[in-house]
């Protein structure tokens, strides 16, 4: 016979060790927090907390270093991949990650990230795409969708004047040095789980020295989009994903063999 023994209860989820015990400055519902959390979870699960050096960027995530309980340096706007290169070349056995928003990485820092990827720099970039400049109050970013209203495209992004949004993952995926470039979304539990798996793969790519890795995460900015957080999730799913499809854009042959 089968005996069922009911143990009163067990913790099935708790705050990861790699997050500092303090409240963030992010607005309510901002999925920067989700990205932080899954990165911290993976770093805990892989036992990397004491071997990781983060490179913070400029934008809403400027204070990322306040929230992760490991070593951080703070880069000038857009330069995180260059700074990460400097750290990694001196300390090749440490894990070096950058955490950058779309203004930081896809606008002012496009040169640095393209060349870090082209060199096959063995770093991991976490790229948060929320289709606007959050910290400065919701201006047009290189990722702002055609027609999307922002404080610097008050009538909606006019592609005749401001051009089209940049699909950073697709762009970086053309580079030989890039080993793992994927886009994920943080708008529902299933996609968050897939994003976490990608974070894990990216860090495994770095741990094994396979080259440049990047996980783009579609993210919401309820405050600047002028929506409730739950409305913003829906907007992301309906408006952003058609322009920025979730998917694997570059998985080098060596990465394809990884068991994560």
């Amino acid at each position, binding site marked *: *016979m*089968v*005996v*069922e*023994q*009911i*143990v*009163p*209860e*067990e*913790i*099935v*989820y*708790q*705050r*990861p060790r790699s*997050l500092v*015990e303090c*409240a*963030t400055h*992010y*607005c*309510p*519902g*901002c*999925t*920067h*927090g*989700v990205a*932080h*959390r899954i990165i*911290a979870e993976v770093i805990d699960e892989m036992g990397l907390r004491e071997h990781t050096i983060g490179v913070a960027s400029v934008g809403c995530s400027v204070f990322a270093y306040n929230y992760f309980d490991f070593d951080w340096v703070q880069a000038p706007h857009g330069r995180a991949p260059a700074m990460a290169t400097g750290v990694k070349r001196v300390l090749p056995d440490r894990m070096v990650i950058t955490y950058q928003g779309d203004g930081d990485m896809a606008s002012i820092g496009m040169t640095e990230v393209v060349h870090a990827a082209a060199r096959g720099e063995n770093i991991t970039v976490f790229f948060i795409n929320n289709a606007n400049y959050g910290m400065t109050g919701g201006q047009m970013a290189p990722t702002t969708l055609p027609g999307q209203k922002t404080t610097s495209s008050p009538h909606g992004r006019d592609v005749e004047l401001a051009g089209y949004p940049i699909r950073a993952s697709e762009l970086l995926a053309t580079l030989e040095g890039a080993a793992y470039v994927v886009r994920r979304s943080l708008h*529902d*539990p299933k996609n*968050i*789980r897939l994003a976490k798996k990608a974070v894990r793969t990216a860090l495994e790519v770095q741990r094994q020295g396979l080259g440049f890795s990047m996980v783009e995460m579609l993210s919401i900015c*309820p405050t600047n989009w002028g929506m*409730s*957080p*739950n409305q913003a*999730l829906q907007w992301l799913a309906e408006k952003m994903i058609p322009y920025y499809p979730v998917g694997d854009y570059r998985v080098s042959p060596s990465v394809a063999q990884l068991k994560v």
Partner: protein
Amino acid sequence: MPVQGRVVISELYCKGCELCVGACPQEVLRLSTERITSKGYHPAELAGEGCTGCGICAVVCPEAAITVYRQVIRRSTAAVGA
């Protein structure tokens, strides 16, 4: 009988964004109308029976504010007549 669970939502972190409320498959989460956090938010809370400890709320929570507990059922095969 479904597995029983419960969640503890830290008021240090919770900003009342309602993402957990929207994601909860059992619809047992809501924002407290009575409590207010030190930052001035109405925190999320468990309202009533039915939490299974599935952890979806914790997956979507941007603040890592939720600790999830769940009953554990350990199944073992016992020898008959022992």
